């Protein structure tokens, strides 16, 4: 049964520029409301990394109308759940609620689009919370290695920075920095409101007009980075620290999500490191034990595990592969095996069967997610934040049109030894094999 993501989709734009996407799904008395802002670490300037993420935290601290506790209660009292995420390209807030309470979430989102207080005391408390969030991540060698590899993967583009921000910047950022960032980027013309679930579109649109229509958009001062299509030549990042297992990470440039090459790259990822799910809420995944990297590395004892991550971004990003190497293993030997696999995929065309397999896997992952209303809300804004909704609606069709020749050309274009960053974390508590 084909999955038609355009079914019951309604799109509008208010005069102030707010884009509205509504999707009727009447399978459960639930709605999921998402508001997406076109701001992430991609638009941050040196010395101010982490601003977007910190602003996201402050959006739960209150406005004149709602205290932080009110915001909690509004969602929790009715059994809903809410959260927010900041990425390199976007910041998003969502509430999944019993559908009778949709109006309350719209009121909240309209209010905190412009009226958040950024109380100085709350800013200071949140500084230590965010530093704590960062310290929790720093406990893991994988995080520290990934942060270093990411930094080497771009010369000046902000994709090089950790979304959480650097520790120095987090210590130096002021309340005014945060408030200016908020007032600049949080406005209707820079937002997409997406609602999926048990709704009547025309009634909801009226509510949206009433609540958001009066908010003015003002000219935005946006920092737009220059895309970096290539990587530094063969960069190597070496780290050493406590631990008993070693880690290997390799990053290759990948195209922007809107680039036609991206779909061929998706097939490459599926084949090399296993299929990625586009979901945010764990509605299914597929293992990668038949992927080429798993077979060559794990089955042959060069690594204990391996996985990949192809990011869908506005600008060219990175495709990363992570391998965990046994305490007596050798990251260098694992890298050689990866090189062999890259050589194979850049030397000969795939079979049609391999492409068909990747498509069937993608179809299954879509089927798993389509039952989840929260995911449906997510997809609308997610795809629109780096391309448009048709990117996700036509995802399977576009994958199906990829040819073995395109896959080969794409692999040859991007998976180059002189266009990658290799990161190695060597654990100091082990005896590495020769």
């Amino acid at each position, binding site marked *: 049964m084909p999955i038609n993501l355009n079914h019951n989709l309604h799109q509008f734009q208010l005069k102030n520029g707010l884009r509205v996407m509504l999707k009727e799904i009447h399978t459960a008395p639930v709605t999921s409301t998402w508001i997406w802002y076109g701001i992430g670490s991609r638009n941050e300037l040196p010395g101010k990394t982490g601003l977007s993420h910190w602003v996201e935290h402050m959006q739960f601290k209150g406005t004149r109308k709602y205290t932080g506790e009110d915001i909690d209660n509004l969602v929790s009292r009715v059994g809903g759940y809410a959260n927010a995420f900041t990425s390199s390209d976007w910041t998003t807030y969502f509430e999944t609620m019993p559908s009778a309470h949709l109006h309350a979430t719209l009121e909240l989102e309209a209010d905190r689009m412009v009226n958040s207080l950024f109380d100085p005391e709350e800013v200071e408390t949140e500084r230590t919370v*965010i530093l704590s969030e960062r310290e929790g991540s720093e*406990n893991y060698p994988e995080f520290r290695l990934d942060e270093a590899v990411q930094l080497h993967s771009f010369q000046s583009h902000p994709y090089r920075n950790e979304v959480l921000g650097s520790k120095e910047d987090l210590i130096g950022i002021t309340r005014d920095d945060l408030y200016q960032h908020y007032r600049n980027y949080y406005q209707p013309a820079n937002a997409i409101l997406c609602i999926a679930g048990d709704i009547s579109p025309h009634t909801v649109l009226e509510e949206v007009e009433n609540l958001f229509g009066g908010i003015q958009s003002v000219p935005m001062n946006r920092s737009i980075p220059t895309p970096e299509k290539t990587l530094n030549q063969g960069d190597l990042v070496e780290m050493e620290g406590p631990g008993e297992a070693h880690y290997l990470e390799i990053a290759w440039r990948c195209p922007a999500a809107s680039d036609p090459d991206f779909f061929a790259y998706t097939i490459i990822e599926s084949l090399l490191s296993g299929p990625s799910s586009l979901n945010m809420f764990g509605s299914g995944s597929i293992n990668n034990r038949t992927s080429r990297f798993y077979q060559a590395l794990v089955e042959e004892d060069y690594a204990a595990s391996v996985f990949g991550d192809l990011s869908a971004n506005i600008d060219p990003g990175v495709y990363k592969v992570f391998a965990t190497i046994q305490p007596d293993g050798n990251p260098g030997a694992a890298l050689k095996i990866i090189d062999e696999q890259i050589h194979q995929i850049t030397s000969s065309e795939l079979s049609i069967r391999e492409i068909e397999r990747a498509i069937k896997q993608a179809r299954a992952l879509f089927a798993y997610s389509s039952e*989840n209303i929260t995911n449906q809300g997510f997809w609308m804004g997610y795809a629109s934040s780096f391309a448009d909704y048709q990117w996700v609606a036509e995802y399977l069709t576009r994958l199906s049109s990829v040819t073995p020749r395109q896959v080969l050309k794409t692999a040859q274009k991007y998976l180059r030894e002189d266009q990658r960053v290799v990161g190695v974390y060597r654990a100091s508590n082990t005896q590495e094999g020769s």
Partner: protein
Amino acid sequence: MNNSMPDSSTILRETWNNGTTLLAYPNLTSPAVYFTGYMQPGSIADPDEMHGLASFTTDMLMTGTKHLNFQQLHDKIESIGASLSLSTGHLSTTFFGQCLREDLETIWSLLVEVIQEPAFTEKQFKRVRNQILTSIAIQNQDTAEMASQAFNSALYGSHPYAHPEIGYAQTVSGIRLEQLESFHANHYGPNGLVMAVCGGIEPEVAREIFSRTLGTWQNNTQSPPETLPPFTPPVSSIRSHVALEGKNQSDLIIGVPAPKTVSRDYQVCSIGNSILGQYGMMGRIGKVVREKAGLAYEVSSHLGAGIGPTAWTIVAGVNPDNLEKAIALLKQELVRFCSEPVTEQELQDVKTQAMGRLPLSLETNAGIASILVSIERYGYSLDHLHQLPSIIESITAEEILASARRYWDLEKLVIASAGKAL
């Protein structure tokens, strides 16, 4: 998904002569099917010198069968976009999987094959052992994991729950292939297996497929279920810390034994727990430790559920310099929790939250299948979801206070942490 709650009129429940049970609930709008369940072997069957045996055996199941090698087995699963996993807990081994509805028979046939006819080859034995040892090595550097192990060791003492299911490097290194084969032959069998399935398949069709697959499994050498030894709670407070170098954050667990899962006390404590460390931004302790003091990004409380003994815990990740301060703040909140009733507003808030969350928990096939498994595991009625609202509504602030005092004995706290040396 239809808008009504699964109940005795819509859930198919059937048992087979071989001791297996199927629960099925339809969601015919979904093109996919999710299933999950459990069967008998758990790590409590591990002999003392072989902690990790049950878990190691389970890990071997997915490495190939007598008819399919590793590559062939996983190709069959992954090429149709399906998933199938097994993992061992203390009391049972759980399994779960997902597939498009047309592939359910294929996946259940594979499940039968991997649990009935695993290959246990020497090559895979060595590889899986290395993977387990690597996982243990990584866990040994993980502050959250080491705090959890220290907590379990202190709380459970000589009870088998004191040990991690995965085992220890020393015990796993000593396990031989023939011991895995023997464990499999003696412990894996149909008796006690429960399967719950939800998705785009009629329950009657699921029943037919189950009859042809798991319903036919026989193992005459399957041992009876292990009996859980009695659990003796600590008689005084215990403080333990695992020092790990190079860590910027310490993980902390404070806890006590929890009430039995199937009891009025459990329902009462569950509402109390939500007020303590779940509701909104992690309840009362979230307000004090995160919102006011800014000491932690993560702090929350958890009420364990299970057939055996479980714990009621508070967990937090804090800067090492703030560890003692966080412990003091959390103890203060526990004193308050045990000395005055929760407010009517707090009680009302968490009750309406619990009621409102019910339809949301039925949003996905996985959510429903998980509820079906709980109904079977804890012996609830198939109409449990209809009964829950009146149970929740009847809970009072006085009952929560009495339960808090009964379980949070502040003279017998187990406090475990891991991170920078104290």
